[in-house]
């Protein structure tokens, strides 16, 4: 009888020991794996930005080949949302509730990101480096959302400031995508011009479905703008520059970082992108920076698909994931979401191959507590598709 009870007690003791471990184990983390999710358009009109997720994938494979982080492999769950917010939401829910992600990284687009922001934040799931410079990520700031991408509004301000102060251009017009992305750029340009006692000479909205850009260019031409800021998709930007050339309208074009992959822009514009000035968020593709060269060799050459191109959009996937990887490393073997947040908040002047990233302890009244960078770099497209660095990394001030 005593032996029988002793057996039962042993079983109870083992179960009691196991329960806390099971309860305390963080979702998406096992002894050997860390599950991280990401969406990105591999098809559809925004597919040019599909290489962001493929860049992150190659980066994680590189880390795994080097032994992972504290003995754990990074398991990357990437899905194609076609830049369709409904698909983004469905895909995120499926992965989160089916497989269970520890955290999410990058994710292309303001609208797709907005579709899942609330879902992730309510569940206290960390999301690092959305691939869009929207103010929506930080107004108000969210404890578990860490932005890396420079703010579009700040980029626009920096470009307009460069045009007005360095180039003496006074008549500024904006062609903007008629959504949150485009309006961030428009707002930045308006605010900066106001500072200089100027106003936009034309504001031309571009609908995502528009294909004929002649009416838009006619409005820009009519305004006699000497600088046109393009805050549109890649294909719309190229068409506006092309139609402008056909209509003998030749202002200085400037554009957002989403159009700063110059080899791609030169290819699809058949060389017309030459001379365009863009803001950018990463080292230049031909930079000799050692870390960039390492990524090129160990991530891109080792793990990217054969027909993948080494370009800004590809290694953007690395830039947006670097702070997450660094924070996971700093967490040590005991990885939890709260610890990850703590380590991310501790990142100060962290520099990978993008701008300097710093966060602060969470403060609902300080949007900058979750905006990782305030730096950008202005570059000009050269005839061979290479970039001329105009400013180096500069801090975008209010």
């Amino acid at each position, binding site marked *: 009888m005593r032996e029988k009870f002793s057996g039962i007690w042993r079983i109870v003791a083992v179960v009691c020991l196991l329960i806390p471990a099971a309860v305390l184990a963080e979702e998406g983390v096992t002894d050997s794996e860390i599950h991280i999710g990401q969406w990105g358009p*591999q098809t559809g009109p925004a597919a040019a930005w599909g290489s962001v997720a493929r860049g992150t994938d190659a980066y994680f494979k590189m880390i795994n080949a080097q032994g992972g982080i504290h003995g754990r492999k990074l398991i990357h769950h990437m899905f194609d949302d076609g830049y369709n917010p409904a698909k983004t939401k469905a895909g995120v829910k499926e992965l989160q509730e089916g497989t269970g992600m520890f955290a999410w990284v990058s994710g292309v687009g303001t609208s797709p990101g907005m579709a899942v922001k609330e879902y992730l934040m309510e569940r206290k799931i960390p999301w690092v480096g959305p691939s869009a410079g929207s103010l929506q990520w930080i107004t108000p700031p969210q404890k578990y959302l860490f932005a890396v991408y420079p703010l579009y509004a700040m980029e626009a301000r920096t470009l307009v400031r460069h045009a007005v102060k360095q180039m003496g251009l006074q008549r500024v017009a904006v062609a903007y995508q*008629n959504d949150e992305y485009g309006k961030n750029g428009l707002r930045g340009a308006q605010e900066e011009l106001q500072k200089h006692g100027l106003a936009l000479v034309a504001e031309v909205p571009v*609908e995502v*479905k528009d294909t*004929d850009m*002649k*009416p838009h260019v006619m409005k820009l031409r009519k305004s006699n703008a000497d600088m046109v800021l393009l805050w549109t998709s890649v294909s719309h930007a190229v*068409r506006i520059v092309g139609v402008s050339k056909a*209509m003998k309208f030749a202002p200085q074009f400037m554009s957002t970082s989403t159009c700063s992959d110059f080899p791609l822009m030169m290819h699809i514009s058949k060389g017309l992108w030459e001379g365009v000035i863009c803001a950018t968020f990463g080292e230049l593709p031909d930079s000799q920076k050692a870390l960039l060269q390492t990524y090129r060799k160990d991530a891109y050459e080792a793990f990217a698909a054969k027909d993948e191109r080494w370009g800004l959009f590809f290694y953007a996937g690395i830039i947006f994931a670097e702070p997450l990887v660094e924070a996971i490393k700093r967490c040590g073997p005991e990885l939890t979401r709260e610890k990850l947040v703590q380590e991310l908040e501790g990142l100060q002047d962290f520099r990978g191959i993008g701008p300097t990233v710093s966060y602060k302890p969470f403060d609902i009244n300080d949007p900058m507590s979750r905006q990782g960078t305030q730096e950008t770099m202005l570059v000009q497209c050269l005839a061979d598709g290479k970039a001329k660095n105009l400013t180096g990394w500069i801090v975008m001030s209010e």
Partner: protein
Amino acid sequence: MLDFLQMILSGIAVGSSYALMGMAMVLIYKTSEVPNFAQGEMGLLCAYFTYMLLDGFGVALEIAIPLTLAVAFALGAVLEFAVLRRAKNPSVLSMIVITIGMEMVLLGLVSWKFGADQKTLPFPISPYDSVALGDIYISSLELLTLGIALMLMIGLFIFLRTTRLGMAMKATQQNFNAAKLMGIRTHRIMMLTWGISAVVGCIAALLIAPTIMHPYMMWDPLLKGFAAAVMGGMTSLPGAIAAAYLLGIIENLFGGYVSIEFKAVVAFAIIVLILCVKPSGLFARHYVKKV
């Protein structure tokens, strides 16, 4: 005044690609009474085929284009023979669903084979070089599109009016069974119509591809071409053409003088309006079938 003239010219220029797609849709509708929603993707496949020949195999343009047109004809004919003709007791609705299915398959095929990255078709005429008429501009490619569209219109008009084959196509559309009883090989006529329509759609795609090329590039031209065909009356070739140019001009004038934000949807608002007032379209005769 200059702006007004520029808008009219721009409208005519953009209307040409709508007209080509509209013509392709009307041709099929005239014989089978099916709006072919795979029309755009049939052209898309052909444009990518040309791209593969030019970029991948280094074939000369003067060989690649005729070869592509032949492939387009074969594609149209094969799709009619192998897919549409196999439908059992087809209603118009089921035929429409079949064309939507074909559209998905062709789109998937292009995305799988060529990827979703943006490309441009190597073409000797740049879409961004222009011809100036005083202070009014039209791009060289648009001028070429306009010329080709006009030539095709005249060619098709003469073909349908004066040749035995054209007559047979019209007869097949007007009464399939009677045409069959009169000795017309109606199935062959259908196949031929799909082939010719695919060639017209392919030409539209080839003239769009030098500007921008990605798997979704034919969606807008297809929708606008379809809108023009509906406005024109679906069975009227001149109607579809006139409506396409009208659509292009209205879009440009609306964008210039009223609202650039709603320019893209004005075409569809016009369709609703026209169909409310004249359900058979602007140019088609309203046939009443006897029962």
